[in-house]
């Protein structure tokens, strides 16, 4: 399967939402993808199981940066437990395209950081 690109990916890659640091985070973690050099660091402010604030510093390919951007946007205000249950299919939905097997690790890197952080 080849990887397709959506306007969502383009938009979120060139203008990533929630990009930057959080000063008052409660949880943070980094994840990297040695295969292509993607790097992401997530900052979470979690209260009573809810993600009150989320930000990330992400460097890498379009799929990786756009995934971090759409997931951050989606995760804010939601229960951490629910976000930790997200998988590849959910990211594909948020991005509006299916993810090819070669790019799975790029798409799920940000989720990996969230899992590590919490």
């Amino acid at each position: 399967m080849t990887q397709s690109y959506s306007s969502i990916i383009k938009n979120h890659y060139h203008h990533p939402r929630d990009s930057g640091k959080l000063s008052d985070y409660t949880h943070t973690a980094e994840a990297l993808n040695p295969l292509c050099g993607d790097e992401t660091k997530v900052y979470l402010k979690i209260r009573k199981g809810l993600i009150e604030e989320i930000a990330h510093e992400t460097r890498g390919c379009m799929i990786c940066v756009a995934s971090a951007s759409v997931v951050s946007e989606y995760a804010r205000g939601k229960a951490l437990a629910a976000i930790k249950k997200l998988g590849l299919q959910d990211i594909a939905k948020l991005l509006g395209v299916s993810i090819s097997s070669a790019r799975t690790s790029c798409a799920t890197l940000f989720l990996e950081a969230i899992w590590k952080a919490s």
Partner: protein
Amino acid sequence: MFMLEKDFPILNRKINGHRLVYLDNASTAQKPESVIKAMDSFYRQHNANIHRGIHTLSQEATKLYEDTRDKVQKFIGAKHREEIIFTSSATEAINLVVWTWGHDHVKRGDEILLTEVEHHSNLVPWQILAKKKNAKLKFIPVSLTTYNLQLTALRQLITKKTKLVAVNHVSNVLGTINPVEKIIRAAHRVGAKVLIDGAQAGGHVPVNVQKLDCDFYVLSGHKMYGPTGVGVLYGKKELLNEMPPYRSGGHMIKKVNLNSATWAELPHKFEAGTGNISGVIGLEAAVDFLNSPNPSLAKRGTPSLLQREGRGELLKYESNLTAYALKQMLKISGLKIYGPQNTKDRIGVISFNLKNVPPHDLASILDSRGVAIRTGHHCAMPLHQKLGIESTARISLAIYNTKEDIDAFIAGLKYAQRLLSPPRPPAWTSPKRSRAGEGEMKEGVNLP
């Protein structure tokens, strides 16, 4: 017509509905029909273990296997056939030297000189050895303007403490052909030994180990149109003779008692166990192919010249194609090449980045059009750190590539640029922060 598809059957493949344009030859080259046939016919007609039996098949298999040694000896100009050791890869060949010669000769406080442009294969094993031995690694720097090794630093870098210098012949990222002759001479002046990693040179630049006077030379079979799982270590006979075995077991022994054993003569001392017999036999066909390519490939050069110069003509073909690729790539705005922009002392391994289009996404778009390129750090992370980037895209050419292939690649680059470059500035105000719901993409997405 060139009938390339007949010489290299995989070129018949359709990838995502497109003709395959394979530009990832530095990772591994495609195999000519003759290589595939040689391996197939070995299993169908001659399969037996080598050096063991007196039955006909074993004799045939041994002859085929040992014939390859003669061919490789000639191919790289070695003095003795037993100086050619078959390994499983270039990586294993380097590890062999590290853990035999290196382990015996590198002592506390000694220095091992590498370059900043090594493949991890010719870096990590030396790191492990240096750590174990409390030895020091030093690096010949690379210039960020010319992308050449800065040999002016050699005087300070090669000292009486230098035990070994290990350098790539051709960089798998920059495509540069390194001035290994000069490095070898400087190393020998202080009595250091030199290993040349020729994984990217084999099949792309002429190699003559006696002229180079290197102590060790390493080849990767699968990068020179041969099968995977076979590599070559060349070593000067006197060095190989004094080195201890690397792996031990069957075949590498002369006599075994319950508590001790003595070693077989070269090259068998370094070829323990049953090796990759079919792979070595495939490598012979690859060397034959490189020495006298098929008439159909020959047609692409000037036939008379090809008859006269054989392999040289194909190398010239590759060099001309590299010049064409560089010229077409440099016309693209926002494209930066990491490596020399002319064909002097470089081969058709060209790393680059395209503004606004990360390498991995470029590779995905090109793949959708049948064009195969490599992206990432190409097993040279320290070099990428020096270049100040995480990853690059890379094309690498082989003798079956054509101008049409380059054109398809260039068209793909332009398409990716159109498709993936930044959209108009978004409607929302703060680029740093946007709340859920404000983005234009939320509608219709409903996750469970």
